[in-house]
């Protein structure tokens, strides 16, 4: 039987989209679809085509709907695209809704019994007898559920023109040497591929054509990149508590630590990793280990930062180092725990009660996830303070193509730590004395012999010698010095990156918004609007940010939260320029897309 591909031609009679399309796969959570989807993505990647994948999954173990989108882009755009050229519908629960939302002309691969082809006339339907194919290709009924998804990989690969050898290679890569599983999945995939070849006419809607754009690139997610950064940065104490979407950061770190931090002969480890009872305890471990000289870290999400905030404020005031990874999700509270947002901006900027100001790093690429994680430990020790590395679910848990990470050759900066001899040589050491005028004091580590350097760390008021004091002048001195330290940090945090088109209209964004902003900038240019783009990479704002704000007539602050939190920080920092900042917002839990940015900026421009 030849399936109906009498379908509408590409929308508007456009030519075939070569390496430029989006596929959305609708499945059931827990059905093993993540493996199948990653194989499809990886096969396209191996064909040399830029590709990104986004898993839209529910807060659920099994049974609820999940969607995975794969975007291929000849131009290298990797942001989420709201429209899809192919739908693979495996979930009866959502099939009708998915059909209703489909873009005209989309190819729809679906399970034959669902009989979706009556629902709309402007789609190209491809009913596939999945059960029949899986029964024929897999002898073990209990495995049918797991390999059924691999059949749509085969069908889609055939339709898209993906080389089956690349698919087989991707399966082997994904299943990491598990011979039986590899064979089962490859067999199912071939069954789908062969069925498509025998039963379907070719389509010219969307195609993958071999390219050379991904040669030498890696596929990685941000949590793994951050974990690797921490590994190379020499983290020695990890206190953590599981939370989506941050758990895989430490879990991946644990896997690497097994290989790179254990003496193969003795089994002894150079890193202590403890899953604590909650986030509060994790923060305590991080700060006290940092206080005692270790390079320490935790990873969490917004609700975890909320729980940690008392400790983080203490860490700021007593000046204890530690790295806090915040892989942000939608909030507040549980929010949509498996969806993405950038809604912890203000929380991380000023986390805790009283006057606090924190150094934040905002990686926007996988290379930066790696590098900034490495740098965060230097900054924590240099500035003796909690450092936030802020990513989000989109960066942290989605697949991204990236250049391989460059070796971080820069030696560790352990900051102003005094050893026994240096302490002995100092006539008048005070833990909180600003000797160098940069707000950064000299510290001693517990256990240093020689009888000098011991002090009591306390959250209560203290003077330059760490002695208890409620004198107004002592408190003001400490608080002013902490502000001075924050000012010093401006010269040491990563400055912004620019993508300028010669305009006095600025766009400003950070983190995972970057790919969508780049794409939006190009779309706007095509529409006749030039923009300059600054991607913020840290708090505090550096001198370059300062200049940018002052020079631009208008600054569109793109961020993924409701209240324009970053724009608020800008308005507060630059009150004389407050009216320049226009918020371009996206906060529905999906990763930001270029169209939503274009639409909002266009609307502002037309006012």
């Amino acid at each position, binding site marked *: 039987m030849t399936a109906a591909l009498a379908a509408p031609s590409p929308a508007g009679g456009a030519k075939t989209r070569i390496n430029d399309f989006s596929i959305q796969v609708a499945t059931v959570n827990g059905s093993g679809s993540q493996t199948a989807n990653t194989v499809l993505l990886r096969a396209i990647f191996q064909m040399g085509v830029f590709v990104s994948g986004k898993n839209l999954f529910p807060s659920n173990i099994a049974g609820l709907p999940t969607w995975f989108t794969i975007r291929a882009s000849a131009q290298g755009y990797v942001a989420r695209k709201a429209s899809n050229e192919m739908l693979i519908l495996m979930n009866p629960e959502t099939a009708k809704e998915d059909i209703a939302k489909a873009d005209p002309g989309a190819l729809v691969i679906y399970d034959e019994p669902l009989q979706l082809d009556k629902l709309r006339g402007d789609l190209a339907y491809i009913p596939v007898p999945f059960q029949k194919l899986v029964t024929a290709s897999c002898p073990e009924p209990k495995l049918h559920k797991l390999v059924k998804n691999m059949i749509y990989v085969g069908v889609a690969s055939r339709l898209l023109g993906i080389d089956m050898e690349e698919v087989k290679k991707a399966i082997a890569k994904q299943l990491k040497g598990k011979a039986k599983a590899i064979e089962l999945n490859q067999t199912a995939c071939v069954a789908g591929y062969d069925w498509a070849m025998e039963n379907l006419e070719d389509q010219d809607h969307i195609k993958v054509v071999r390219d050379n754009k991904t040669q030498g690139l890696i*596929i990685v997610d941000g949590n793994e990149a951050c974990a690797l950064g921490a590994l*190379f940065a*020499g983290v020695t*104490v990890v206190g953590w508590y599981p939370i989506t979407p941050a758990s895989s950061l430490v879990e991946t770190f644990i896997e690497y630590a097994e290989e790179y931090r254990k003496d193969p002969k003795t089994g002894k480890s150079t890193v*202590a990793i*403890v899953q604590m*009872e909650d986030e509060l305890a994790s923060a305590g471990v991080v700060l006290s280990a940092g206080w005692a000289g270790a390079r320490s870290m935790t990873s969490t999400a917004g609700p975890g930062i909320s729980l940690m905030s008392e*400790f983080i404020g203490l860490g700021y005031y007593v000046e204890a180092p530690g790295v806090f990874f915040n892989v942000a999700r939608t909030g507040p509270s549980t929010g949509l725990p498996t969806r993405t947002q950038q809604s912890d901006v203000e929380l991380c900027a000023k986390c805790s009660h009283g006057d606090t100001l924190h150094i934040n790093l905002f990686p926007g690429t996988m290379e930066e996830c790696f590098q900034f994680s490495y740098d965060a430990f230097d900054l924590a020790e240099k500035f003796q303070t909690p450092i936030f590395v802020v990513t989000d679910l989109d960066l942290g848990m989605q697949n991204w193509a990236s250049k391989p990470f460059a070796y971080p050759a820069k030696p560790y900066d352990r900051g102003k730590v005094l050893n026994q001899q240096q302490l002995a040589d100092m006539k008048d050491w005070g833990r909180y004395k600003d000797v160098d005028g940069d707000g950064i004091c000299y510290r001693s580590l517990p256990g240093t012999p020689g009888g000098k350097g011991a002090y*009591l760390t306390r959250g209560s008021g203290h003077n330059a010698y760490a002695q208890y004091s409620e004198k107004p002048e002592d408190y003001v001195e400490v608080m002013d010095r902490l502000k001075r330290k924050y000012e010093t940090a401006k010269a040491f945090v990563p400055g912004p990156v620019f993508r300028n088109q010669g305009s006095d209209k600025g766009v400003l964004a950070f983190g995972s918004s970057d790919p969508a902003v780049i794409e939006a900038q190009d779309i706007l240019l095509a529409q006749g609007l030039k923009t300059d783009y600054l991607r913020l990479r840290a708090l505090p704002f550096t001198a370059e940010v300062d200049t940018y704000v002052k020079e631009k007539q208008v600054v569109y602050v793109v961020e993924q939260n409701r209240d324009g939190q970053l724009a608020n920080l800008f308005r507060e920092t630059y009150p004389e320029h407050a009216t320049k900042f226009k918020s371009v917002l996206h906060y529905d839990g999906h990763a930001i897309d270029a169209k939503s940015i274009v639409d909002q900026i266009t609307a502002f421009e037309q006012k």
Partner: protein
Amino acid sequence: MTTATPSAPVPAAPTNKLGFTKQDYVGSKSTLCAGCGHDAITAQIINAAFESSIEGHRVTKYSGIGCSSKTPAYFMNQGWGFNSVHGRMPSIATGASLANRTLINIGVSGDGDSMSIGMGQFVHAVRRNIPMIYIIEDNGVYGLTKGQFSATADKGSHLKSGAVNDFPPIDPCTLAIELGCGFVARCFSGNPKQLNAILKAAFAYQGTVVLDVISPCVTFNNHDASTRSYKHVKDHDFPLHDLGFIQYSEVEEVEIPAGQTEIVTFPDGSKVAIKAIHEGYEPTDRFGAMKAIHESMAKGEFLTGLLYINPTQPPLPEVLNLVDEPLATLGEDLLKPSPAELDKIMQALM
């Protein structure tokens, strides 16, 4: 020519094996209420550390919030201290003890700090067997917030305001034994000899020591209706008093013979029964210890002494199989993988 009159030779202060005097183990002047039992505990920490020849620079002192949590400032100025946040001293001790396993960790907490907000961290620190002496200065009342009930307050006891405690107390010792703690002891702050002996044993122990010290509050639990007040507050000249850094007073200094019960009578006539464990007590019998404590509690007594010990439990750094050197000072060469190793990782991601 005049000749100076030779002054009488000043006897040198006694030194310990390391050549330190007791003065080397003292801290700042206490700001607790005159007569506070916590100062008596501080005095015995100093004595025990001196007598055990503890290296002061290796000592770290941790606390949360409350009167008790001020006490790390009052002993061993040679050691580093961290006065953290309410109830979360254990996680502070956990992180630092992992960062440097050569440290000698002393945590001082209160019944409010440990048995209410800090209950979670207390139980998890104990089950992880972090290497520390965890002292609970237990007076059944919140002092710094001026006299509310704590979770160890006796059921039926009264506040100064007249309010009655409706809830049974939580007992840190039975809880610690239940959690698998390998060294559980209870003392009375008015029994310096017993406290001193227990502390010296605690310094020699490798894992978590839970030491519950009944330490009556002279200000907020010293009223007529209290079950934990002092009848008479009188100054005592403990040997340490000569050093001039601690002043405290107690109703009486008691020494309770093994197996016997001493009744401490308070101003309102109420009594606390302190019972020392008998000579034949077997502290390695976990279930026997629980039974003995419960039997004493049923009689309204506080059983004191080394209640339970298991010397074979590995502390957390051993459980995690950490290297022998402090993690805090490991060199970059031991921590940073090589360029070839990064390349291997990158190849695997391609």
